[in-house]
């Protein structure tokens, strides 16, 4: 079992232990939080020193974010041509395929659309079996879907640790699967409510606004009885925590566990 450490800031290399065989570094949810070239170079150097694999994690991006990413990829392709790039945007996958074919694309968890809302746990034992199969299933059991990815060089897909469980028995065996622990994302927004949250100005503004990286300071817990568990809003994204090691790990359904010691924002 491959064990990867996922960090979104360089300082968190302090979480690295010899148990890890790979480092994930980057950002899935906000293009403003993408690492700069200097941080990327330092983390790459660390990965080289430790002799472990490297995966650059990329977010969904506007044109501006795409331009920023294009400044990082040449260095990555030169320094670590065996590196993976976790794509959470079809445009980033397109960019890799056309301009950086040496890098290894991975389908990120944002493009893996499993339902994650914790309310599912209220009904999972009451719904028809077909619905249950849907909630624990994946479109990687559709040959056309798996073929679509493989045709584009994608042989690894990232999964969250679903509360309702994950059944990968029918998923294409040629596609490797990673499981993220313990933070699972539920939803994300560009109308970030953490942006400027400690300022009265724009308190009623719900849109895309400049920010002072307030996400680095504040985290919000959000509770509603039907959710069954608290949600965590960090920056522009909602998460839940699921620390239970699922059966799919022991059954060999995943071959990589991605550990997030902190919420990856």
């Amino acid at each position, binding site marked *: 079992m491959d064990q990867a450490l996922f960090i979104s800031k360089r300082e968190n290399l302090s979480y690295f232990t010899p148990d890890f065989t790979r480092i994930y570094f980057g950002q899935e949810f906000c293009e403003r939080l993408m690492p700069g070239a200097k941080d990327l170079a330092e983390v790459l150097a660390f990965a080289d020193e430790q002799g472990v694999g490297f995966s650059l994690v990329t977010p*969904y*991006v*506007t*044109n*501006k*974010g*795409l331009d920023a990413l294009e400044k990082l990829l040449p260095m990555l392709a030169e320094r670590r041509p065996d590196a993976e790039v976790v794509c959470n*945007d*079809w*445009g*980033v996958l*397109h960019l890799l395929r056309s301009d950086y074919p040496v890098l290894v694309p991975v389908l990120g968890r*944002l493009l893996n*659309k499993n*339902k994650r*809302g914790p*309310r*599912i746990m209220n*009904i999972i034992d009451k*719904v*028809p079996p*077909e*619905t249950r*199969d*849907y*909630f624990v299933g994946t*479109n990687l059991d*559709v040959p056309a*879907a798996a*073929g*679509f990815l493989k045709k584009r060089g994608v042989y690894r897909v990232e999964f969250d640790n679903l509360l309702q469980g994950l059944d990968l028995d*029918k998923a294409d065996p040629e596609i490797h699967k990673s499981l993220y622990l313990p*933070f699972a994302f539920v*939803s*994300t*927004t560009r*109308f970030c*409510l953490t942006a400027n*949250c400690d300022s009265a100005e724009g*308190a*009623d*503004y*719900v*849109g*895309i606004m400049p920010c002072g990286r307030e996400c680095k300071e*504040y*985290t*919000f*817990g*959000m*509770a*509603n*009885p*039907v*959710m069954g568990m608290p*949600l*965590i*809003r960090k920056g522009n994204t909602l998460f839940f*925590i699921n620390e239970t090691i699922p059966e799919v790990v022991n059954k060999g359904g995943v071959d990589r566990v991605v550990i997030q010691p*902190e919420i990856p924002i």
Partner: protein
Amino acid sequence: MKILSPLDSLEEVAPLAAAGAGEFFCGVLEEEWYGKYPVISINRRPAGKGHFRRFADLKAAADAAHDKGIPVYYTVNEHYYIEAQYPLIKKYIDGALEAAVDALIVSDFGLIAWLEENGYDIPLHISTGGTVFNRRSALFYKELGIQNITFPRHLDIDELQDLTAGMPDIETTAFILNSRCINVDGYCTFQHGLAGKEIFPMFRNACMLPFEVQIMTSGNPAQQMSAPGHSLMLDRQKVWEKVHVDDHPCGACALYEFREMGIGSVKVVGRGNPTERKAGDVAFLKELIDMLENEQPDRAAFRAHARKRYQETYDRSCRMHMCYYPRVMTDE
């Protein structure tokens, strides 16, 4: 610039066409699907209003729309489908093709691939679930043969201008009225619910639920911050409860820029809304688009007229949190 209107029944074709609809989108939900998947839709709208119930009804509506020269687009746009669903999905697509719909609105890459593998020859439109935030994504879909892209709600006017200026040759649709989702549709994994206070919380859209909010110093819920003076932050977190309540969110002021950008159509959300509301929404936009195209007002004059007509039509003022493209409220 056309108006893409929701359509739920044959009876709606005439009044919505008269109001100015230039395109229709719709879906079908039969008992067989509902029996197996009561809380999962085939088309992003769960059980309830807003669906044709029989393909024969869809065909009658499509025929009536075509008689008026209006194309009908059919939604099969859930974010993913598993293999076990495909026999039903095939039935839903074959039924729609027999009804002579003009395009499928899709989102799941697996379905796009399946349609190609199985030789379906029908135009495909990418739902907002396709998350086209940048020029490369547009190119990705263009190379898949997609004819139309519906942009995410989460692009501001400047970003849309930048994006459309560098896009491949592909038709585009932007949201304009109703259901201003706080989350990015294509990256939202809550099971899709319904709007309305009468809906039991279990099945209401998750983003509409009232949450008790706490401030934490880290991701650890045990480390809650209790210092005074944080009411501002708490209030801010609860703004989203006000956003997705369908209190007539509107982006009509942005029609001015959309026309300049060459956006092909603007989408009125509202499958399941009463016919009168749908027709009112379409008529509101139609008058504004006609003004743009016939009178060519300057931006300030258009904005002023759009706001006046919004207030007259919906009996409420423009509000920042209900503005689809809020930069239009701050750029003058």
